[in-house]
């Protein structure tokens, strides 16, 4: 760190994840948001992995504005993910926190550990040794229009209506077939997983992926079963017609980190 520390006088503490205390040293060379140094703040057998962040970015007011800045959001999200990924493999598991979980100071981090001790410990037990895999299925845009052989020019209004009816029927059947295929993919993967969570389908204009996103699933899988899960996803991908499957992972179990106590606390809002 240089003499002119970029942090203002009162750095806040960005909390990335909870691990077991004594899970091993933090990976060397791993840095946090804005290249901040990581430390583990430990209490009662748990540790919060934190780094200092500037209050000019992360205090409540500026943070709201910052989140509207896509470049900043991406930088922060990638830094968060890098830290959580870097911790993956720590003994006793890694419990990732939501983006931009920020405490005022180290005392706040310690209180956070104390107040949430039991639910953090229970979640670590539940998620230790598990990874999350993401599976998305898209309609292949090339297949979306069912090989529309240009119909003969309708000779009459009745002809026209008949043609339209047939076309709608074909589209309906194709859509139903796609839905069934997607359900079958999800059911098959769910049987190979300990848990599933469906995220809302991604809008094509956000993902840049061609074709409508029909499935955006997360699957919680034991690490030793990950290879088999990937092979299964590959097999399913190969069987699909008119649909495209993509697999991401292994992720830290973000989609399964919600803990029982969270709902109660959130309920107070």
């Amino acid at each position, binding site marked *: 760190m240089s003499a002119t520390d970029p942090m203002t006088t009162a750095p806040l503490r960005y909390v990335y994840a909870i691990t077991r205390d004594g899970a091993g040293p933090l990976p060397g060379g791993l840095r946090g948001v804005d290249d901040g140094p990581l430390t583990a703040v430990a209490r009662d057998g748990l540790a919060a992995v934190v780094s200092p962040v500037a209050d000019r970015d992360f205090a409540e007011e500026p943070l709201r504005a910052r989140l509207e800045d*896509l470049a900043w959001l991406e930088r922060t999200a990638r830094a968060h993910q890098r830290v959580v990924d870097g911790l993956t493999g720590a003994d006793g598991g890694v419990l990732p926190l939501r983006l931009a979980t920020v405490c005022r100071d180290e005392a706040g981090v310690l209180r956070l550990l104390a107040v949430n001790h039991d639910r953090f410990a229970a979640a670590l037990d539940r998620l230790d040794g598990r990874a999350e895999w993401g599976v998305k299925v898209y309609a292949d845009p090339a297949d979306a229009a069912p090989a529309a052989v240009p119909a003969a020019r309708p000779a009459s209004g009745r002809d026209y209506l008949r043609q339209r009816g047939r076309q709608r029927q074909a589209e309906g059947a194709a859509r139903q077939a796609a839905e069934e295929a997607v359900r079958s993919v999800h059911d098959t993967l769910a049987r190979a997983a300990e848990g599933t969570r469906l995220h809302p389908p991604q809008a094509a204009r956000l993902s840049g992926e061609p074709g409508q996103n029909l499935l955006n699933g997360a699957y919680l899988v034991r690490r030793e079963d990950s290879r088999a899960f990937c092979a299964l996803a590959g097999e399913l991908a190969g069987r699909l017609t008119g649909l495209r499957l993509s697999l991401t992972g292994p992720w830290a179990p973000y989609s399964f980190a919600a803990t029982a106590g*969270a709902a109660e606390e959130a309920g107070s809002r």
Partner: protein
Amino acid sequence: MNEPIPAAPYTSGYAPGDAPGAVPAARRIALVDLLDRLLAGGVVLVGNLTLSIADVDLVRVDLRALISSVSGDIG
């Protein structure tokens, strides 16, 4: 441990064989996949211990930011 996971079209945040702490720079994951998890997943802490950010706000903000980035008018 050393076998690669199935090849493309798969993308991966990091490979199963990576040592803890390996920086997965080469395999870049889509921001939208990342935000699905970082904004809708992870443990949510709300209360006077932390600066509280309601998840509803985040998702809304996130989408607006992403949409404006795609349409090219972010600034």
